[in-house]
């Protein structure tokens, strides 16, 4: 192949790089500058340079500590349940049954729904007076619950909505992995006298480990990023029990207009996620099946 000059690469990359410089680097630099300032948009005062104060506040702010606790619970619960359920469903579907392809495509449906819409329809299901969930709960002879306003239940309710939406992704990813396990490998395991459980545990599970790692990181990152469901289901309440970090930062920025603090907190939040994204890229590379470079 003719050697590719840097010039060639530049022609292809220049538009992309310039657009990205415009829409990511300039906002980033702006955020960085803001993060060293004390600036309340609602108060008629000029921004004031405060050095690292905003960053230091992050580590001493009790509200942040609370938000981090909520976030840790929320992300662990969502991702944990989605992984366990998604993998279990994948193993079940991998055995094959009548109608499996149709049901598999139907399970695509929740994850392309706007998470705001997911939040809204679950808010309707969870509704304390008219919600269908309480109808089921009552017909089982249990007391009705105020799902979204009870401090003990609100976060779990949001987790349930997220599990509903994203378990299918984990399921489909794992199923794709299971389907890619060579049938000879499975056959030889069977010939060696392995039971179905043993085959899944000792052959299939290790084979899909890299794929599981990828989807685990992807879900963790997205769970940390998105606050849409919390916004429409609980608005961080009751008493801050569902106020995850992203939502807390939203309130600081767009309810209390603390621009400097919000910028600093958002950058710390972003650094955390970039760290996870680094791991994600490494997990992409672990996947033996793929080769970015082609030949």
């Amino acid at each position: 192949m003719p050697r590719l000059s840097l010039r060639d690469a530049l022609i292809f990359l220049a538009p992309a790089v310039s657009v990205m410089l415009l829409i990511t680097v300039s906002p980033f630099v702006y955020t960085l500058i803001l993060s060293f300032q004390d600036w309340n948009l609602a108060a008629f005062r000029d921004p004031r340079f405060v050095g690292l104060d905003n960053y230091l506040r992050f580590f001493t702010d009790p509200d942040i500590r609370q938000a981090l606790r909520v976030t840790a619970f929320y992300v662990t619960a969502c991702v944990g349940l989605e992984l366990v359920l998604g993998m279990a469903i994948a193993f079940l579907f991998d055995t094959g049954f009548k109608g499996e392809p149709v049901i598999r495509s139907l399970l695509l449906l929740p994850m392309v729904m706007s998470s705001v819409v997911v939040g809204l329809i679950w808010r309707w299901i969870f509704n304390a007076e008219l919600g269908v969930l309480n109808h089921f709960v009552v017909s089982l002879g249990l007391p009705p619950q105020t799902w979204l306003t009870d401090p003990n239940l609100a976060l779990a309710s949001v987790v349930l909505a997220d599990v509903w939406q994203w378990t299918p992704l984990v399921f489909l990813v794992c199923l794709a992995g299971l389907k890619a396990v060579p049938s000879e490998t499975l056959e030889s395991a069977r010939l060696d006298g392995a039971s179905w459980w043993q085959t899944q545990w000792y052959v299939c599970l290790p084979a899909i480990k890299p794929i599981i790692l990828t989807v685990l990181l992807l879900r963790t990152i997205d769970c940390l990023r998105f606050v849409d469901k919390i916004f429409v289901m609980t608005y961080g309440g009751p008493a801050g029990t569902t106020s995850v970090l992203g939502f807390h930062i939203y309130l600081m920025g767009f309810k209390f207009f603390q621009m400097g603090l919000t910028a600093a907190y958002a950058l710390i939040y972003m650094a955390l996620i970039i760290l996870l994204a680094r791991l994600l890229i490494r997990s992409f590379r672990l996947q033996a099946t793929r080769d970015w470079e082609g030949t």
Partner: protein
Amino acid sequence: MTPAARLRSVLKYLAVAVIVLFFGFPIFWTVLTSIKPIGLIPQMPPAWIFEPTLDHYRAIFNQTALLASLWNSLVVATASTVLALVVGTPAAYALARFHFRGKEELAFYFLTARMAPPMAVILPFFLIARELGLLDTRLILILAYTTFNFAIVVWLLRGFFAEVPREIDEAALVDGCSRFGAFVRVVLPLTMPGLVAAAIICFIFSWNEFLFALILTNIQAKTLPVMAAGFVTDRLVLWGNLCAAAVVIYVPVMVFALLTRRHLIRGMTLGAVR
């Protein structure tokens, strides 16, 4: 069939039934509420069988605000998808074909735009847009959505381009095509399925996006998800209208998802899982 095998098979179908119920019910319930006469909605226990009505759909489509939002969503999602494709596709090709120092860092940089928490991007976008008088315009939303669509295009198409054998580019170059000519006339047509998948996934993400639209728009450029969230107030919620709006927002992306189901997972995982 032995009794044990029969039991296993019964249990399996039972598990499948539970799965279908859990994942299907919320969608079914939303559609059911959207066609339920308004008098029956507050009924407890809920009415399951009734004469369906399109009143809620009529009610929301009679609001000019909904039609405007529909148009905004359509324009913003389409424009941002096209922008990301036009600019991102050549970059994806370069990352798949050329070797240069810092290539992986560049690819990672593109990805960070998809991974960044919306809050970290929205704050500067909001303040810059406010200075430039771009708040509540479709343009600022299009630019904001391009940040994440771009990453989707680059990462997804890079994998598709890598699957096209290099010999095909070489043959085109030998036949007198320029680098760019070989890319546009020979490689792009071969990666059509990838382009379609990338376009649809960008469209879905932009169509569904909420937080950017909430903060960067107000009245003029409001999109459907923001409009729908506005249906919920503390005092009174018109659940029938809300469910009808949910269906209206959902149906286009649902159709797209089913059309591209073969590539959807690949797109959702940025090309990592086929």
